[in-house]
């Protein structure tokens, strides 16, 4: 039961019209000027008014890191928690309050290093929430150490001779955890972000969104090949369900299958009918897409990589409660206390 309904307080008009400004809190935004986080904040604030939902239902939960300041800037309910654990707070909140729209703001360090374990479990449980993973491939708030998504050989303050560990691939990780929704977007593409955020909102289950985010202070230009006007079209593949995989400045390149391998092909040589068609529901394709960007000559896909309809833990948990009430009747404390073998002393 929603305690608010119980208190008879849901008396505001049914429908509210909001603008992006309604979702902007009065806290000063403290990110570095030029940081990709600004765009992510702006796109979320622009997306929410398009959704028919009351503002007080949105709750943003974060951990620690630059990205985790996010809730302070949204004029919504917000919980800025501890490092790596945002997903755990989100789980407890959503399971007990299925009436809320729960969002998690996290980063590559918060969500995949210290919080990697919890990320795995929120995804496999399919808690109905939206996870924004700001991936800037660096530690910003602690001033520039390499992160678990940094490329091998990364020279940072903590790795002056270059990092030596293989990075985690967030999309592949999420798929491996059994995520029911996996998408990727990029800070510089406002429209694409908004489309993904709205789509993720409507997905029932844990929506995992990797957002390529530029940290212009400690890792500037990491995603330049995907954002700079002259080169991006040749490096980005914008996925659309049911559409052939075509990219390139002149839309002249495509992806086709060669055995089990994906390869780039020029449309001059290959008919469009031979190209791979994106199918969000295909786990095989999703896995192939997850490793596409690390293969030389292949573009980086953005968009919805995988989508699956699956029951959510929060629904099932509450259904069990309802089923128990049906089966045993609404709990009677007096009866419970007087259970088992008893005797009377007079």
């Amino acid at each position, binding site marked *: 039961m929603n305690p608010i309904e119980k208190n008879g307080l849901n008396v505001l008009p049914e429908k509210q019209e909001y603008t992006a400004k309604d979702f902007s809190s009065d806290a000063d935004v403290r990110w570095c000027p030029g940081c990709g986080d600004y765009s992510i904040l702006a796109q979320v604030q622009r997306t929410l008014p398009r959704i028919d939902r009351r*503002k007080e239902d949105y709750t943003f939960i974060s951990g620690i890191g630059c990205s985790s300041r996010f809730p302070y800037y949204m004029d919504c309910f*917000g919980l800025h928690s501890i490092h790596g*654990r945002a997903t755990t707070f989100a789980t*407890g909140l959503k399971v007990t309050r299925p009436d809320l729209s729960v969002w998690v703001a996290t980063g590559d360090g918060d969500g995949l290093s210290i919080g990697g374990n919890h990320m795995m479990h929120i995804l496999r449980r399919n808690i109905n929430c939206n996870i924004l993973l700001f991936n800037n491939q660096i530690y910003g708030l602690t001033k520039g150490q390499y992160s678990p998504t940094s490329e091998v050989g990364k020279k940072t303050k903590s790795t002056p001779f270059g990092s030596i560990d293989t990075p985690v691939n967030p999309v592949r990780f999420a798929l491996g955890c059994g995520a029911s929704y996996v998408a990727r977007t990029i800070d510089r593409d406002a429209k694409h972000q908004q489309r993904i955020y709205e789509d993720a909102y409507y997905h029932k289950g844990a929506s995992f969104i990797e957002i390529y985010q530029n940290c212009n202070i400690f890792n500037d230009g990491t995603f330049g090949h995907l954002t700079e006007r002259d080169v991006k079209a040749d490096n980005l593949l914008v996925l659309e369900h049911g559409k052939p995989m075509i990219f390139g400045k002149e839309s002249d390149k495509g992806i086709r299958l060669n055995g089990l391998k994906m390869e780039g092909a020029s449309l001059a040589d290959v008919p469009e009918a031979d190209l791979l068609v994106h199918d969000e529901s295909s786990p095989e394709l999703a896995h192939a897409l997850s490793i596409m960007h690390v293969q030389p000559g292949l573009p980086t896909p953005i968009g919805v990589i995988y989508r699956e309809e699956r029951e959510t833990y929060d629904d099932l948990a509450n259904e069990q409660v309802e089923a128990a009430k049906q089966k045993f009747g609404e709990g009677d404390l007096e009866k419970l206390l007087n259970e088992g073998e008893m005797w009377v002393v007079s």
Partner: protein
Amino acid sequence: MSTQREVLNDVVIRFAGDSGDGMQLVGGQFTLTAALVGNDLATLPDFPAEIRAPAGTTYGVSAFQLHFSSNDIHTPGDAPDVLVAMNPAALITNLIHLKPGGTIIINEDTFDKKHLELAGYASNPLDGDSLSGYNVIHLRLTTGTLKAVEGLGLSNKEAGRCKNFYTLGLLYWMYNRPMEPTLEWIAEKFKARQEFAEANAKALKAGYNLGETVEVFNARYEVGPAKLPPGKYRNITGNQATALGMVAATQRTGLKGFLGTYPITPASDILHYLSRYKNFGLLTFQAEDEIAAIGAAIGAAYGGALAFTTTAGPGIALKSEAIGLGVMTELPVVVCNIQRAGPSTGMPTKTEQSDLLQAFYGRNGEAPVPVVAPQTPGDCFWMLLEAARIATKYMVPVFFLSDGYLGNGAEPWMIPSVSDLPDMKVEFYTDPKHFHPYSRNEHEARPWAIPGTPGLEHRVGGLEKQHGSGGVSYDPENHEKMTRIRARKVAGIANDIPELEVYGDEEGEFLVLGWGSTYGAIRVAVDRMRAKGFNVSQAHLRYLNPMPKNTGHVLRRFKQVAIPELNTGQLAKLIRSEHLLDVVSWSKVQGLPFTAGELEELIEGILTNKNTTPESVRELSTTKVE
């Protein structure tokens, strides 16, 4: 030879056997029957750490101790009068507990070369005179069982497993107990397997008849009903009472209940019980780890649930950072620590009280939290309610310190009526007009304003907040102010809890101050000393942070104060620093509870100036209070 009838006030039986011998089960059945006969009782299981240790080994021995009496009793008993040893390993590991001259009932069938070697006996103890100080009754319990269930179509192995009921039957005969409750239990339990129901019932009766026929017993014993306060009773373990307390607390607060937890010995049973009570609207969540467990609990509390997390010491270590977040965000969550022997993994199945200072101080920064501790298994119910009341009224995480001894131990519990439970109704804050997330009410508590409430959108978190408005603040003055408010809020709870009571003389020579599970042993020792004419009193703290307002006053009324603890003097340290009293600290860290005998010896030692200390206890200071 006809057996005599003897009346006893008090009997302690210890059932010991291999893990697969069903000792916990027959211990439980004897307990149930004793309760129905009207005895006062206390029980304590002693599990092996290994789940399935090789049969016949000493580390596979499982024991169950039961104390039943026609008097009011407080502990599972110091030393058993009767030891049931189903194999040599059970004998060798449990003989140390037995009273001099006590009775040993031995299953002779298992005293063969193989079992003796497994237990580490060089020669058969039944042959030499190593057991001459005891009354040894050795019987072929397996052979007798097999004969009793012959012809029921059971395999040899299945038939042999009925020997626990055969043995129980024998004890029922010795103590003149009715068999009906157990026969009914067997019929119900083995409903689906008629042949097992029949075999176990037959074994029980055959064991009973064995007593009549073997003529090795000189006497049968009677233990009459105890004079407990009138009321309806059930037998309850501490963990069961804790789970019931959680259900009661959700009902009395009117909140949705949520338990976020991760399996750990000896706390897991609370999850097992609670997960069955879903029809009370309670959600139980088995998280991926201890941190996720409390994270989910705090997340639920943020959304307006009555949230619990249950664990043992190692789990608390992992949860510390999140408890600090609970302190900072001022959200209510009840943190249950069913303490066990530490540090690190320590001895998971053994009891200890060594997490008191962890509860007080085990977080970064100044992070005071209220701490309560039940004193008996049944008291777990009441102190859990108190923990929930304090958490929701003062918006703060509250520690509930039980331990393995209370959690697994059992006692008769007077069943309260729901209408006698405190009303703990919680109202969420809802008025958007004058809303300041870090404003304070008369108890210094901030408003509980939950997501979904129109107009109350606000942010909380681990960063220091501006007093009142709740904005992030690095202002030095504000940080000091907020630190002091958080401390004052917890300290103020002293006005909202009962005063410390004294048992015995209100003032005088000697006070034994305890907390938590040592209550029963202290009470017995104090009673014995008083019976001998000494001026000894007892006070027991169920509220540790804050302590009752009159604590210092009570302590100063006595010439000397001693604090027995199953740690190296943690409460003593707190009392010394808080009240500048140099108390005597009695410390025992063996994974075992105090026996009443030990405490009696300690008290008598001081009061007669003999200053004898039992080997098991260290005395950490003997400076007298003037």
